[in-house]
């Protein structure tokens, strides 16, 4: 949840902390071809982070080609018109920089961290691979093996990762969030050159991208370079509107029993379909963000109190919610039972605790402590401009605007205990829930 709690802004707050949030190091503008640019300044060290985010993630993939967004991300490190395969990272490295990329449901992003005077070199290379990759059949075969090993490492080798994957698949009836970002193994094995190139042609264009530069750079300097390298790439008029299938009303409480011989520590996982942050409408997501902290954000949270202090049902419990999402997201709970406590007992204790929370309501003092921490996060955030860059990139690729990002801290501060409880009443309902038990092969739940 720290990701959600560290937004930076220029609020006028009524506490002493307000003075400290007065400087806003963020500048935004849009190039003529529609490419959005965010600059987050910090001139304390001569280092920049250069990122390009695409509004294209696994949830934008065509049916049958799960994993292609991530596969393409790997393939962007192969040859372009100007560079040999692997040369991109080699040049970054030979200039003392680090580079990588990541893919999620709603976005794919590429980044380099490097000395500030190499920003132009990075823009030259990153803009080149926005349009000019040159893939060979050999690239496809070898790199497909690599992503299969990546799935082996992240998912197949971990019972809890396989369990989470099943939970999500059951949570979403009609949305691609139910398909893993890395892809289903049987579809990954069939990914080919055409799959990768057609995804590339549709989504990789300046009007579908966001440039985020953080660190020792000025808005004027970034604008000049961005116009030179990205500004010359034509606007793609064929970029499709980002329409996705939506969830129908969820009307059935679901259960997932996942058994695996590799499970040593069984646990109960619960997820509820939940609204996300929407453009101009972030209050409910803000209320859920606070709710997650209050219910299960740490030692002082409600579930921890009920399950680890008042009783010793659990060795660990947690509640989390990630509101930065293009479409409906989830609100999640986990309870790891203490030795001798069955999964059924753990689940029952969790339900009893949540029910009593719904009756008692939130503790206003806890809400105030949380809000104070959120204000402090804005100060701490200024020490990590790359983190601010990350928040803008993920927000702007999930349907939010710069204004939404900047309004978010104020919206969090204005949430009332009543709004938190209203969000809880709406989201914590059995009909939209999935309850999962991660179990040993022979174990009994009762």
């Amino acid at each position, binding site marked *: 949840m720290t990701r959600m709690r560290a937004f930076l802004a220029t609020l006028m707050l009524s506490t002493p902390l307000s003075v*400290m949030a007065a400087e806003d190091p963020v500048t935004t503008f849009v190039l003529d071809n529609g490419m959005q640019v965010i600059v987050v300044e910090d001139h304390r060290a001569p280092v920049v982070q250069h990122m390009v985010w695409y509004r294209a993630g696994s949830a934008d993939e065509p049916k049958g080609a799960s994993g292609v967004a991530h596969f393409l991300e790997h393939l962007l490190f192969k040859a372009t018109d100007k560079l040999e395969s692997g040369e991109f990272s080699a040049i970054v490295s030979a200039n003392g920089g680090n580079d990588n990329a990541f893919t999620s449901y709603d976005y794919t992003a590429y980044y380099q961290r490097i000395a500030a005077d190499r920003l132009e070199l990075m823009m030259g290379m990153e803009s080149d691979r926005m349009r000019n990759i040159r893939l060979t059949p050999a690239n496809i075969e070898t790199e497909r*093996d690599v992503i299969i090993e990546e799935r082996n490492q992240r998912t*197949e080798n971990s019972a809890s990762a396989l369990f989470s994957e099943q939970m999500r698949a059951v949570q979403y009836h009609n949305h691609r969030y139910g398909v893993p970002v890395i892809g289903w193994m049987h579809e990954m094995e069939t990914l080919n050159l055409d799959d990768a190139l057609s995804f590339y042609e549709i989504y990789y264009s300046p009007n579908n991208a966001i440039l985020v530069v953080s660190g020792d750079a000025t808005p004027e300097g970034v604008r000049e370079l961005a116009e030179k390298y990205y500004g010359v790439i034509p606007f793609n008029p064929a970029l499709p509107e980002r329409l996705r299938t939506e969830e129908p009303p969820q009307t059935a409480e679901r259960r997932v029993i996942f058994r695996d011989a590799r499970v040593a520590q069984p646990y109960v996982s619960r997820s509820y379909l939940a609204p996300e942050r929407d453009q101009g409408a972030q209050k409910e997501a803000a209320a859920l963000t606070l709710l997650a902290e209050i219910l299960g954000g740490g030692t002082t949270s409600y579930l921890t109190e009920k399950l680890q202090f008042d009783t010793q049902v659990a060795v660990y419990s947690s509640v989390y919610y990630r509101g930065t999402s293009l479409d409906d997201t989830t609100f999640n709970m986990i309870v790891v039972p203490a030795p001798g406590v069955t999964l059924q007992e753990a689940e029952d204790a969790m339900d009893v605790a949540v029910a009593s929370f719904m009756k008692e309501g939130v503790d206003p003092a806890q809400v105030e402590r949380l809000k104070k921490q959120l204000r402090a996060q804005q100060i701490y955030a200024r020490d990590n401009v790359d983190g601010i860059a990350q928040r803008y990139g993920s927000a702007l690729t999930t349907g939010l605007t710069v204004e939404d990002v900047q309004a978010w801290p104020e919206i969090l501060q204005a949430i009332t205990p009543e709004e938190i409880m209203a969000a809880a009443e709406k989201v914590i309902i059995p009909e939209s829930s999935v309850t999962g038990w991660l179990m040993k092969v022979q174990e009994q739940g009762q």
Partner: protein
Amino acid sequence: MRIFSVLVISFLTVLPAQAEVKIQEVISPGGITAWLVEEPSIPFMALELRFRGGGSLDRPGKRGALNLMTGLLEEGAGDLDSRGFARAVEDLAASFSYNLNSDSLSVSVRFLSESRDDAVALLRSSIVDPNLNESDIERVRGQVFAGLLSDTTDPDAIVGAAFNRMTFGDHPYATDLSGTNESVAALTREDLINAHGDIFAKDRLYVGAVGDITPAELGKLVDELLGGLPETGASQPQAAEVTIEGGVTVVDFDTPQSVALFGHKGIGLEDPDYFAATILNHVLGGGSFESRLMNEVREKRGLTYGVSTFLVPRDHAATYQGQVASANDRIAEAILVIRDEWSKAAEKGVTLEELRNAKTYITGAYPLRFDGNAPIARIMVGMQMIGFPIDYIATRNDRVEAVTLEDVNRVAAELLDADGLQFVVVGKPVGLTTGPLPE
């Protein structure tokens, strides 16, 4: 009036890309040394404390005592119980984090300038006067058991434990600092009090601070925070002998992808050839996408998502290790490729071009580390623990540049021992059995 004096020695360091990290040595009125970078632009500070010895200070038969004690530091102190302490930290919007490894216990802290005094008082109570209540001990002990249980089926944990067991003989490094179910179950409150006394002492303390504070204020702060600690703690462990031999050890575990940890003897930080070894490692397996192993195992053959090597210079032993993970039917091939690269590098060394690229990366990437108050505080503590001079940052890249091709290739021949490389493999690897490496 010695009590009011603060000794300040300043060094201005210029990083390759002209970053300035102005480290000052502050000796508090009470005689505690701290390194400080003043950074007044953001109204908070990061403080890093480190106590040498870490989990290796466990007394005989008390494995896991330091770890359990560390877990209890945030569970209440003075008048505050566990939840009261957590609420107090939240009220201050501060963050206290206590971590243990085999060589040190670290306390990583940040707090706002406006609540500095209260934060220091609260932090002090957790370090000097933790409650170690029986009910909290039982709760945290349960968390340790849960972690140990999870480790029993985590391939990464299994392979790490097996490798350490084979490598470090009867030294504490050979065993998990969390302890075993039996050793943790037997720990008493008195054991935890002993563990606390063994580690929290001035003779093993290192302090780094970055943020909105002056040298005089920092001198006062460290005295308030740490002045009450005893002068001495437990004696440090002896050097460990690295006993691992070449070959393959298979730990049978039913999972689709085999996880391998490999390694042999390494090279210590105090060794004059350490930078030559760093460059060698970058070329062989340390430099992410460009290393020879990444190129051979991943880029050319698609055998893995990641293969990497790393120098592990610990206080009492140095190893050179690497890791790779491949599907059960492909791990044998990955291992043979790694072994071949190992012997190739030992025999032929690296090329001049590889040396140059490694140097530009290692020197150019150095400033990227100094990216915030907390990272700088951690780096300064690390420098002190190694015994680097306060102006080390300015000279570090020159030391890298001074390494010659002959140095690297001499070190490659001395350090790399393909026949002495032990591969510990967890999984159902096809074509591999415990014993010598197949040809």
